[in-house]
């Protein structure tokens, strides 16, 4: 039985803002560009603090950026 899955819409929300590159998003969130790449590819789970920073930089709510899909909710 698989557990809960955390996905994100970072790339989609970033591309909605003209000129917001991965590098710029990384700068705003005070992380490396590779972390943004890993986040967009779903290979890294951010801390709560970083999740909030990302939401603020993307001008969206945390739950708009990250989605939690539990098997029981499907």
């Amino acid at each position: 039985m698989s557990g809960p899955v955390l996905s994100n819409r970072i790339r989609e929300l970033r591309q909605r803002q003209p000129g917001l590159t991965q590098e710029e998003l990384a700068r705003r969130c005070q992380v490396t560009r590779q972390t943004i790449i890993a986040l967009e590819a779903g290979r890294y789970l951010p801390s709560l603090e970083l999740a909030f920073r990302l939401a603020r930089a993307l001008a969206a709510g945390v739950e708009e950026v990250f989605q939690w899909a539990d098997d029981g909710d499907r």
Partner: protein
Amino acid sequence: MDTSATTGSQRGTIWLWAGGASGFLAAYLLLFAPNELLGIDTGLVGSALLLLAGWSAVYGLSATRANPESLVTLGEKRAWIALITTAAVGAYLLDKLSGLGWDIDLHSRALQKIATNSVAMLVGAAILARLLRQREAGATLEDERDRAIRQRAASDSHGVLLTLLIGLVVTLGLTPVDRLPFSSPIAIAHALIGVLLLSELARHAAEVWRYRQERQ
């Protein structure tokens, strides 16, 4: 056509080849060449070449930016430098001490030279890491992902250290003294240094592996 990218890629490739050549020469001087050639300490020259090889490789990798997603972070570069340096120091110590004998007198000139060259390699690696940090100043150098990777690698290293120490203690405790390959205090000290080196090697290898896993 992006000519600047092509030129940068060519320049990077040249630096990578230069780094590779320096690395081979460094390995030869450290492990296979006589301790002195024409009155020059080959170990010190090898250590300096190892530092040059490291810088060339890092510069070459930065210049060959073919795939933006393959850009290596400062954390991963530092992990690679630490891994290669630790492996080089370990190979160097193993080669020289097994040739001179594990019970070598601590005050001997040969051992002092070996210690000096080992320290030179470690200092060179620290200088290279510092130069890298200064070169990338202005950008975010380290973030929570780097710290998480280092933490997990340290945990792996702790496990390796415990396993090796327990192995050493059991070997020392259960093997008759006359059959023990290292029974003198100096030899046991060398064995403990070896255990420390191996656990550090495991830590840096784990860091490099985790960084590469996250890029796949």
